[in-house]
């Protein structure tokens, strides 16, 4: 299976990661700005449905940092976001400086998404459902990093409309 190789060759895209970063304040009003910033990662080989899932995961990760991790922190506490696009995956990292939480435990105690009339707690479940890799780890600089990776099968140029 040398699909990856072929696609890279076709598009002239090297598999070298290209992280793009943004630093924003802990303010839910910044979400629109974060969403607009994420527009730059639309690309012909990335299916729009996959981009939409990543956009939603990003929004849930960001609002989670603001509403929970930085709940008791001043608004100017930075949330750092980094997106790395690879030929067959998108990686999103979100750093907060909260006290951290046990993601596995939160996911297992959270009501299932099937509990349709529940009013909250869907954010983490949505990220879990839209990502292939989902983790939340303490970093050496005393922050937390929410990592979400979404794999995708690149669209070949013949499938790109227009």
């Amino acid at each position: 299976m040398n699909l990856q190789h072929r696609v890279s060759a076709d598009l002239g895209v090297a598999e070298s990661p290209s992280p793009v970063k943004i630093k924003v304040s802990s303010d839910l009003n910044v979400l629109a700005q974060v969403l607009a910033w994420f527009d730059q990662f639309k690309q012909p080989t990335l299916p729009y449905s996959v981009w939409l899932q990543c956009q939603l995961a990003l929004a849930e990760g960001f609002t989670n940092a603001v509403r929970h991790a930085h709940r008791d922190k001043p608004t100017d506490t930075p949330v750092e976001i980094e997106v790395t696009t690879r030929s067959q995956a998108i990686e999103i990292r979100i750093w907060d400086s909260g006290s951290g939480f046990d993601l596995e435990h939160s996911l297992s105690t959270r009501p299932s998404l099937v509990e349709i009339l529940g009013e909250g707690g869907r954010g983490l479940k949505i990220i879990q459902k839209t990502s292939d890799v989902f983790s939340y780890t303490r970093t050496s600089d005393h922050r937390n990093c929410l990592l979400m990776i979404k794999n995708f099968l690149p669209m070949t140029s013949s499938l790109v409309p227009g």
Partner: protein
Amino acid sequence: MNSNIKVIQPAGVLDGTQTHQFRGELDDIVNTGARVILIDLQNVTFMDSSGLAALVTAFKTVRSAGGKLCVCSVNQQVRMLFELTSMDRLFEIFADRDAFNETLNKV
């Protein structure tokens, strides 16, 4: 024509910053006696889980008042969110306002 039918049309990003206003608007409408409420999402560009939670609250508020909540004009992003969370099974979703009105006229 029918004062029991009311439309709410939120706009932009429907997230945690908008839910308070949305809930207030909905409560006012329910209190005026509206029993069929259409949430027209035509101008909503993006919805997150907080926006979705506000819709679920709206659904329950309207239902407990003996009414019905419908949704129309959802974009691809909102549809994806509904499907991920099974909300497409909870809400009655119409393609647009015309489709909604057509259904009403048949009743």
